């Protein structure tokens, strides 16, 4: 079990780097979606044996984070006819270096925190923190509103990984509520992005400067 889980988590980390290093928006969205799929898989590996509810939740996670949310984002991307590049504030090399730094820091930080015995040696906590930090990098260094949504999604993916340790404490309904909130959140953000495109005829971000002191 631990082998399979570690494999999944390493793949999650690889998709972090893919997200930071690629210029095509579509690829970034797909990377976040693939991450969602892997998370659904990780959930099944860790908790699938504990009953039909857990299986349903794992499949729902994969479906929502891996299929539905990327589709919403691709839909919002289509509302924009040209310029489907990410357009970061910093170069891709710098992004990747920041990503590597964040991953290193996550491993160090997880090392200083005491882990429960069952989780020592597993990549769970470092992978979670690294993905959260990657989400932050995407959120702060990317210009377009749609890419920022992907950043939020990555952040949320990272938090989800941490949540894998706590499934017993989360009632089924609350887990579903969290998932639905993310889904509706991305949906609403997608709608707002489409409105931004209509109002400003660009994918927002750097045009949103009318409100300031």
């Amino acid at each position: 079990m631990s082998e399979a889980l570690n494999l999944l988590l390493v793949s999650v980390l690889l998709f972090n780097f893919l997200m930071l290093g690629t210029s095509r928006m579509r690829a970034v969205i797909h990377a976040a979606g693939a991450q969602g799929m892997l998370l659904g898989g990780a959930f099944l590996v860790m908790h699938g044996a504990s009953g039909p509810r857990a299986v349903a939740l794992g499949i729902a996670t994969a479906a929502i984070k891996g299929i539905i949310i990327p589709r919403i984002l691709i839909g919002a991307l289509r509302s924009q006819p040209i310029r489907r590049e990410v357009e970061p504030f910093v170069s891709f090399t710098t992004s990747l270096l920041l990503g590597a730094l964040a991953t290193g820091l996550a491993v160090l930080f997880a090392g200083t925190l005491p882990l429960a015995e069952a989780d020592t040696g597993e990549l769970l906590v470092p992978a979670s923190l690294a993905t959260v930090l990657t989400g932050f990098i995407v959120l702060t260094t990317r210009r377009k509103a749609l890419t920022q949504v992907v950043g939020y999604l990555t952040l949320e993916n990272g938090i989800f990984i941490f949540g894998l340790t706590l499934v017993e404490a989360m009632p089924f309904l609350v887990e579903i509520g969290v998932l639905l909130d993310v889904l509706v959140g991305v949906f609403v953000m997608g709608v707002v992005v489409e409105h931004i495109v209509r109002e400003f005829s660009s994918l927002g971000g750097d045009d949103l400067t009318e409100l300031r002191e």
Partner: protein
Amino acid sequence: MSLLLLAVALPLAFALVALAIPSERTRPWVLPVAAIGQLLLIALLGEQRETLAASGGNWLGLDPLGTLLLGYLTVLFACCAFYAPAYLRLRPERPNRIFCTMMLVFFAMMNLFCISQHVGLMWVAIETTTLSTAPLLYFNRNRRSIEATWKYLLIGSVGIALALLGSFFLGYSALHAGLESSLVFGDLVAHAPNLSRPWLHASFVLLLVGYGTKMGLAPMHTWKPDAYGEAPGLVGALLAGGLTSCAFVAVLRCYSIVVAAGEGAFARELLLAFGLLSMAVGGVFMVRQRDYKRMLAYSSVEHMGILVLGAAVGGAGLFGSLLHMLNNGFTKGVLFLSAANIHRHFGSKSTDQVQGALRVVPASAALFLLGFFAVTGAPPFGPFLSEFTILRAAVAGGRTGVAAAFLALLLLVFVGMGATVLAVVQGEAPAGHAASRVRERIPQLAPIVLLLLLVLLLGVWIPEPLESALGRAARFVEGPP
């Protein structure tokens, strides 16, 4: 328990009704009807309070904080709901179906927040308020409002995501200590002394930053001026009075676990730092502020600072802070609703165009002016009493430096805010408005007058049931002395 869920189901049912009504003129009346229903329900819940109290591993229940907040939110919502039909009649050009529906969904989620005893459920409720208020902010459908909505949505969602991570850390601190994994507040407080310290510390920082973003504490307040500036005044009142109070209670619930774990000193330092910084940022940005709705947003940042500062002082300071939560909410209601009346008449929210409001819309302008005196802590209004309570507790606790900074910042706010408010209400109205002294309609004024009377009442006399509710809530947070 099913009785408690009614507090969520009732507004949701009315939301469906609002969605179904075809007439733009009739639909806003669903809001006051729902408010009356909610008032009756709260009276019923009040009688059953003992049986509904939070207990054991239940993830629904009324703790003293939730009880206080639920009662307060109902009164605030009722005042805003009775204002809504008059306001929406002034905006016939804007469809209000989504507005009325989302208003009720928003209220239902605040109620869900009050009754949830599970860290995860509480998170779901707060996140859903963010999502349901986004369409409310976008009511005006222009460039400025889409920008404000985007910032609100993104900053709010990211902040609240950090709170989720903090919640998980909290759960992990129990798991690490070998305790049975639980995220129910009652269990966490009971097991607090055994929780793993490093995880508990990290968790409180994340929870404070996360829910602090929703409160609008500096430096996570950047969404606030845009959102409050562009939102309809009615929404501003409910955000500044309702949602921020919910986020404050979320912080207090998490704080109570840290206190029970014997790590209160660590948390108090953090709360104090955020409190003073928020008061300073709010005060500085209020000086020479020409947009009177953005000014109200900075006033909200400042008062959120006062709330966490009071909690950091502790003891009587926490009591004052909880009282201030009510005072601030009701006063913000007065200010946002009267500002909305002024805004509607002048069609601008800049002091360049809005002057002499006392001559043109005398009643609304007078209420706005009185609201200003109340919010800056002038006696005999409620905020004076609660701010004075916090100040006295700070001095009594030997924190004279904090008390001095508190007073200096209050003075800065008074001067800064005063200049803008006086520019709005005094002087001659700009050409074109001078002759047109309009008749202000009673439905637009009565809810504001009622809110002002509440602020006045809380300043001169606190009813015994409220006083004991405040005392219970304060003892609940800090535990037995």
